[in-house]
């Protein structure tokens, strides 16, 4: 099952904290929804630093990041 994290509307650094907890729990793949490019880049950088692969998809003016290991 895909783990889903909805971080839309949450300000920095909440999206990273929530996505980070999901990565630590290890339930891949993880889908993270974010609203801003800032959050998109922050989550992407954090996930890549944790040796994960990140695919980004734009959905309207929001973003879905799929994190796998």
């Amino acid at each position, binding site marked *: 099952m895909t*783990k889903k994290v909805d971080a839309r509307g949450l300000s*920095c650094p909440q999206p990273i904290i929530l996505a980070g907890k999901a990565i630590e729990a290890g339930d891949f793949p993880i889908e993270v929804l974010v609203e801003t490019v800032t959050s998109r880049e922050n989550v992407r950088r954090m996930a890549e*630093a944790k040796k994960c692969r990140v695919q980004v998809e734009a959905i309207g003016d929001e973003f879905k990041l799929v994190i796998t290991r």
Partner: protein
Amino acid sequence: MSERLTRFFASRWGIILTGVIIGILASLLQKLGNPPNMGICVACFERDIAGALGLHRAAVVQYIRPEIIGFVLGAMMAAYAFREFRARAGSAPIVRFILGMLAMIGALAFLGCPWRALLRLAGGDLNAIIGLAGLAVGITIGVQFLKSGYNLGHSHKTYPAVGWIMPVVMVGLLLLAIFQPKVGENGAIFFSESGPGAMHAALAVSLGAGLAIGFLAQRTRFCTMGSIRDVVLMRDYHLISGVGGLLVAAFVTNLALGQVNLGLFGQPVAHSSHLWNFLGMTLAGLAFALAGGCPGRQLFLSGEGDGDAAVFVLGMLTGAALAHNFALTGKPDNVAEGLGGGLTPSGMLAVILGLIVCLVIGFTMRERIQPETTEAQPTPTGATFGK
């Protein structure tokens, strides 16, 4: 092309370049007329704007600082150029307002925001080390709250007009700065005739520097508070490499311009009351951490449509007014008489009360984090939305 630029700005070199440019511009602005040992100080400059509008009547710190206007408008231009302007608001605005007020009271006890603390250090003012230590302690306390579930809740998308309010206010301030209208003999606007408020680079130069910094900082998410928070929270050195760039570039530029003056006592617009330098910045750091950004970052966010960051900025303006009206600000060392400056008893009380209020906010706005193993349900915060 736009995406490649975005990736560059999000890279380590992007943030370092931004820090270097801010450091050089700040030191150059000092050479071109901005107050010594300051260059650019977001808190001091917002305080000067509050004074120009007559929100406080400290005659030596009144000027509509074009740098602040440039920060917001430059960030707005970058946000529009890269399609990132998103009007949003509604995440605990009254708490953000209070945090802005308290952050300003703490910063003015030290006499500077985190930007100025770095620039003071780059100019040889060793009091800045104590201020930065206080800042780090305040942010570290804030990180403990973040780890235990503290957050200000969701913002929501809203009308573009909401996101436009702060940029429009800044255009209004720019018109006031250019035309300098005087409404009656004792009426606003006020511009200092002596003191730090009277020291400034030419309007166009300050505005240009502000626009450039606002543009770059919006792209790279430059944030001094965030830099320390990210190191403490997750050993992420991305933002702090930009802050390092600022410090090194400002120091080298100051050396080249003969603006380094090593010492503790008698530094311009600064005091050497160590305890209150430390505690003032502890308060500021905690308030910035709870609000999610340093004062510069709050300005950039307000330029890209974030109405909550705009409320924080208005809180800072109000905090500046209260700090001067109630004599809460740090008094600079008096070099002529060899007297050390520092805080009045009311200023000390304000810093202590501010710390208590921040702690209460931190303790009472924590959400129990759902265990990752539970069946995820939609929650009010939307932390998880299904499994």
